[in-house]
């Protein structure tokens, strides 16, 4: 699978899983995309650890450090998987994986070169020394526990946006 194939298949499968998908080429585009998808006055959790996050963080006037108090999380995640349209969140490097769980809106930024082709590719890469928590996220939180009727946003985010940079 070429890099372009991985990107195309990932975006297609993520959209099928009901994630919003956005593809940008540089930091300027990224900030413009964030401006479109994030409610600016909302309390935003953006850890500001990676260079991408630091650039993003400056956008939000109402930043909070408690993930439980945030309405939106904006973060760069570990990677993604094309096969299933999945985000890979890792606790490596002191990342708070629950940041993508507690707020109602999760905005995940993924660098293109971090897209794995398949589940096998990801697990081959982490099998030796997995982090404390590795969570695969595919679309928003959902349930079909009542009459097998799909309902979105049970305990995790009701809305998931993915920005590929």
């Amino acid at each position, binding site marked *: 699978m070429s890099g372009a194939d991985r990107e195309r298949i990932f975006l297609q499968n993520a959209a099928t899983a009901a994630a919003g998908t956005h593809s940008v080429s540089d930091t300027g585009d990224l900030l413009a995309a964030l401006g479109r998808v994030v409610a600016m006055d909302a309390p935003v959790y953006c850890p500001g650890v990676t260079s991408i996050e630091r650039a993003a963080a400056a956008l939000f006037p109402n930043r909070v450090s408690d993930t439980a108090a945030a309405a939106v999380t904006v973060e760069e995640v570990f990677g993604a998987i094309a096969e299933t349209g999945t985000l890979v969140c890792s606790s490596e490097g002191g990342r708070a994986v629950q940041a993508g769980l507690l707020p109602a809106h999760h905005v995940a930024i993924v660098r293109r070169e971090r897209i794995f082709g398949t589940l096998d590719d990801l697990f081959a890469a982490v099998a030796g020394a997995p982090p*404390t*928590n590795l969570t*695969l996220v595919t679309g928003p939180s959902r*349930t079909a526990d009542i009459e097998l009727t799909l309902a979105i946003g049970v305990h995790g985010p009701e809305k998931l946006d993915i920005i590929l940079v």
Partner: protein
Amino acid sequence: MSPEQTSLAFRENTVRALEDTALRAAMKHATDTFGTKRADAFAPVTDLEALRDRASAIREDVLANLPMYVDRFVASATRAGATVHRAKDASEAREIIAKVLSARGARLIVKGKSMVSEEVDLNSHLEAAGMEVVETDLGEYIIQMEGETPSHIIVPAIHKNRRQVGRLFADRLGVPYSDDPQALTKIARKALREKFLSADAGVSGANFAVADTGSLVLVTNEGNGRMVTTVPPLHVAILSIEKMLPSLTDLPAFLRLLPRSATGQTITSYVSVITGPRKAGDATGAKELHVVLLDNGRTEILAGEARDILKCIRCGACMNVCPVYRTVGGHAYGWTYPGPMGMVLTTLLTGMRKSHPLVDASTLCGACVEVCPVRVPLADLILGLRRRKVDEGFADPRERRGMEAFGKVAASPALFALGQWLAGAFWPVVRALGGKDVAGRMAAPAKTPLRRRLP
């Protein structure tokens, strides 16, 4: 939940289920939907048979070397910082968990969905010790509120319709009545969010345990499993010993099969791989992780001829296609696990004496064998258990005598014709006496037998 096993009353349970029209409508809707979704999810998988072979071979290897994999898991999980406990039976598991929780002063426990915790009847034990235990999977939340047990291993409240859930929430939570699943889901989200944030401990199950790394794998959709395992300071996981996989590289085969077989999804919303508690420098994870590995008779099953049932990965596909389960639902089976895998496991775990009517709850049509993603030979296992039922003296001797008599009659054309004439002549009497029982449900014998209508 009710710990009382009612498998011996299977026949009475089924009669009650058959008369419950709401239950039958819910079961038909749910199992039909499951069938369609499952077929759609597998349609694009071109190498399905090879995938099933691979998953089946991994599970067979795990069972062939189970003590070695369990030891390896214990060593790896301990190295990752978890405390691992071995429980030989249900009461030991309950004691261990109650002790861990009460030693840390835990009062409010949030629980993720775990059939093994149902198997050991954990909740009532913790409640008796003065703890508040809150089920957080939406289906489990509904049945806990109703005081019921799960009737399906994946969708615990499959037997309820949206109006029943709406009335339950209105009664118990004091919210306005709604029968919209999305609105009901929002109500549960709000009620449970407070519990997650104030809980002293989370109790979860696990779909798989990885021997090489000591990792627990949880496959979920709602996000409650992630809450339970990462938000409270203490996480206790309970799982049965056969859930081992050798390595994380074995996981993809199961992540491709389990969600497709269970709910017709390509993958679930969330898959969590948890390796030990929070370590220095981590911002995620419970501060303390305890893993309880339950045997509860599995080592004995492993040594017997029904050991292949331990390959099961609990997807529930066998129940969705089973003509018996589809008709009577899960509660009729009278214990934790229903359907084809459930009748086998129940008989083995609780003993023939407490469960022997279950082994007849199958037409041996083989639909379960056809859908099982890891090739558990369910029909063979059920036949084997029927043999054991006879050998152990639990079969009704009248059944054998009746079959022998029928064999003689069927071998003689004259006797067979006489039998047909008698059946027609006495049918009104049989029907009147039978009432609502089996005879009352049977069609009347044909006036002219089929063999005389054929040229």
